[in-house]
């Protein structure tokens, strides 16, 4: 199935804003895949999202979904990954 992906930075291999994932894929699976493509992990060894990114699933921050990273995705769900700078300039 295809999942819509939006990010505020370049993720190689994200074809026209979407990726193909396996049926029953979880949010964590997709983020791991996107992290591999981007060559930096969004999920730490403690299975927590790195504080340097914000993740939204269908417009709602992932932490507000009860199953969090284990949330199963459905066709055309929208995953947003936003990198957050620690400071500006």
């Amino acid at each position, binding site marked *: 199935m295809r999942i819509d992906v939006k990010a*505020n930075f370049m993720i190689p291999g994200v074809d026209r804003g979407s990726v193909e994932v396996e049926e029953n894929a979880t949010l964590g699976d997709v983020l791991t895949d996107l992290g591999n493509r981007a060559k930096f992990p969004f999920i730490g060894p403690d299975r927590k999202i790195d504080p340097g*990114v914000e993740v939204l699933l269908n417009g709602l921050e992932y932490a507000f979904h009860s199953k969090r990273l284990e949330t199963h995705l459905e066709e055309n769900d929208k995953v947003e990954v936003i990198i957050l700078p620690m400071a*500006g300039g």
Partner: protein
Amino acid sequence: MDEHEILEVIGKPYPKKDARIKVTGECRFGEDIQVSGMLHGKLLRSPHAHARILSIETGKAEKLKGVRAIITGKDFPGILYGNFINTRDYLPLAIDRVRYIGEEVAAVAAVDEDTAWEALDLIDVQYEPLPGVFDPEEAMREGAPLLYDNKPRNISSQSVWEFGDLEKGLKESYLIKEDHFQTQSIKHGMLETHICIGYWDANDKITLESSKQSPYAVWRQLAMGLSIPPHKVRVKQTFVGAGNSGGKQEAMPMDFAAVMLSKKTGRPVKIVHTMEEVLIIGHMRHAFEIDLKIGVDREGLIQAVDFYAIADGGAHSSIGQLSIFLLGNPMMVTYKIPNVRYRGYRIYTNKSFCGALRGHCGPQAVFAFEGLLNEIADELGLDHFEIRKRNAVTPGFVSLNDMKITSCSFKEAMDKARDVSGWDKKKGKLPKYRGIGMGASGMVTGSNIMGLSNCSALLKVQEDGTVALQSGATDVGQGCDTVLPMIVAEILGIEPDDVSFALVDSDLTPMDPGTWSSRVTFYAGNAVKAAALDARGQLAQVAADILKANEKELIFKKKMVYPKGRPDQGIELDRLVRHCQNRKGMTILGRGYYNAPADTLDFSTGKGNFAPTYSFWAQVCEVDVDPETGQVDILNIWSAHDGGRELNPMLVRGQILGSSVMHLGQTLFEGIIRDDKGKTLNASFLDYKMPTFMDIPKCQEIYSMDVPDPEGPFGAKEAGEGAGNPSIAAIANAIADAVGYRFKSLPITPEKIAMAVRKKEQREAL
């Protein structure tokens, strides 16, 4: 005019609150802080631009009398920290590799500075030198030495975007001009060097006192690099002896070293950089190689722009992903460009790293763009103001990358600058070797780059009718310690001197992004305004009951609260506060926060209206050039700005004057000079030429369009950093007018000018 609308405080030239203690030397900077039992730290720096660290032997140094501790990179968890998740490449101290001359490899704490310096000489570091790369174009080539194995072609970050149809735009252009421009790496000469005092207490609570302009960024980065939760870190801001970024934004190796040395010794440790250290480490201003192509129609209307740039980023990323985007952005908020391609690449080299300095890449971009635009105007026979007015953004304009222009008196500012400078009487009519030039630019007011971009404020109205204000905003000399209290004073009907302004303490003051991107007056100002209104609302509710009046009709003025039109039937503010406290148990605490109506910046597409509003600047410069020596004498700089309403004209003027001086230094003589091995050759103010009083323009005139911005607090928007955007362009264009030759490489030194004059005269003599 309604009594509510009569401004008693806003718009008045109140002197900066800390001016008196600063000029009398009473101000307690970090350097002045002495703590019982305090040790002094120093940092050992790499003599190699690129090398593997084979071993570090500290035994001899540890035996030196007075040395209390020595640390290396292995004393830290080895976690990379940084600004963006995808560009984290800092370590507290280098562990296995150094990437520029000056990179920190070890630190010493001793009973005094001399002992610490001596101990550094006794640390034996064995290096295996690696090939270095010092030119960004060479660094991009296949086969060039890589600074980071996971960064092919040494690309630290890039910003590539295209809107419209570039080819079509160029094809349809009547005239196309292209050229190459170079800008140099500089360092802002803040007179206070970096300083910190670290404490690691027995409860594992870490306190860092430091002259930071974005204390919360330091707070997060310290926690990240030490691998501890942020609540274990407390950052206390000291007075900042000038910021302008340049390293006071982020956690630095010295900060990590101070707290780790404190952990090892159980004593506070102070580290102060020398000016030599400041001039060899980051953060420098990016040097750029810019290839610019502009196509226009017969009327001078821009049809297409192709902007290609390579930035020399040095050894680390800092905020480079934003920097390389921002180089391309000024043109999008200055002119209506229907077709555009921007390709910016920030490249790692074995040099001290670059970051955000005042204007954050804007002045360099504007120097190139305005220079080429003048060439186009000359070829079309158009006046320099005229071509800009034809292309200038206007209210309601939305750029191709979604920047939404709201309040905008850009053309009016240009008209003003033209008028007051006497442009029409001078352009083309000045004596030989006297010239006049102009520059124009738009500028963001506070970028919203996600994460914590908003501001908050807390205030307490005290029983004597004064206010203790806390925000997370830091004053780095720009004046928020005065302007934010002015906002409170205006709303509560008191004097700015009745409002105290707290230095940031991460355990106490509200979260805040820090001082950057010309945001403080706008974001923190709106938050402070909301907090003051909150407090006034609480007071009005009680006063309405006492005065038998409608609370919405109450006036707060001259330390009195009274029903509209009946000042004789009011109550003193201090009495009202005491009544609230003593009779009702109410401490009057106001709280406010503000987040701007702005979008996220999408780095992958270059799109997003990432600022709530934009300011606009037009500057004219008149110069005299000595043809023999090439010396430039700046006679006047006229600045006309649409920076919204000036909340404090005196402070705005100070910002603009300072900005002009800062940028004339970059235009005429400043620059980091390195040898071909990456060693800085001018690491002192004897050799690194900064502007002095002798270089300041004879005259500077400043004009505000004074049009309030609907979103800004009392109509304010950016009015300081943007002043520097057109400065280099205006001075360079004036020099070009004076000598009949356009310099495309900075700095425009007397040598370059004298040579150009001589060559021109020789050509003319043939």
